[in-house]
């Protein structure tokens, strides 16, 4: 299990390759990568991500631990950035390795659902005109009821 909270970009290709190479007894590897999308108007300058140092690492470790207890997993990776990102930048990734595909998929979805609503990150969108905090979506909270 590896949890990284960092300001600098991560190398999706290298991380995916390293994660998949680490174990040879896992038949299924799933990755999810979150990318900063531009707004509908195409006017997003910067996506600022604030976090709660200390709690962030604990919360992510707890979520990864919960996933490992619930599904048969060989490994879990979570990388989440903070700071100022631009449209097209990669915000975060999770990866799961499991003997079987259903476990790898479900665990990755679980990680994402919890990471969205239970890890202390907050997004602020800066456009040329103004800046505003992204509101949490009801659907993100209700997604947790699946689990």
């Amino acid at each position, binding site marked *: 299990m590896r949890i990284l909270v960092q300001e600098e970009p991560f190398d999706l290709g290298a991380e995916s390759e390293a994660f998949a190479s680490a174990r040879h007894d896992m038949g299924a590897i799933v990755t999810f990568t979150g990318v900063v999308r531009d707004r509908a108007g195409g006017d997003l300058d910067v996506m600022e991500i604030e976090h*709660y140092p200390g709690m962030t690492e604990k919360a992510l470790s707890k979520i990864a631990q919960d996933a490992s207890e619930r599904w048969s997993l060989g490994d879990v990776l979570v990388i989440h950035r903070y700071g100022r990102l631009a449209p097209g930048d990669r915000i975060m990734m999770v990866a799961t390795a499991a003997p079987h595909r259903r476990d790898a998929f479900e665990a990755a979805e679980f990680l994402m659902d919890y990471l969205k609503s*239970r*890890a202390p990150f907050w*997004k602020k969108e800066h456009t040329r005109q103004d800046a505003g905090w992204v509101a949490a979506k009801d659907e993100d909270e209700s997604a947790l009821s699946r689990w």
Partner: protein
Amino acid sequence: MDILYFAWVRERIGLPKERVTTQAATVSELVAELSAREERYAAAFSDLSALRVAVDQELTDFDASLSGVREVAFFPPMTGG
């Protein structure tokens, strides 16, 4: 006890962190105490349903006890991922 504020709560109150000495037994009592201080606190805490609280870096609710607690944080619902 350290009190931390994040996102718009930090912006509304105007600082990321402060040290307070309090007799408050629960988070709710602490919120009442802070709100009574100044308008900016009252504004930030006016709708608790829009806020989340962590005590010693664990998510909890406003009924949580502050006994032995070193750090309380207030913030809006999280928007990670």
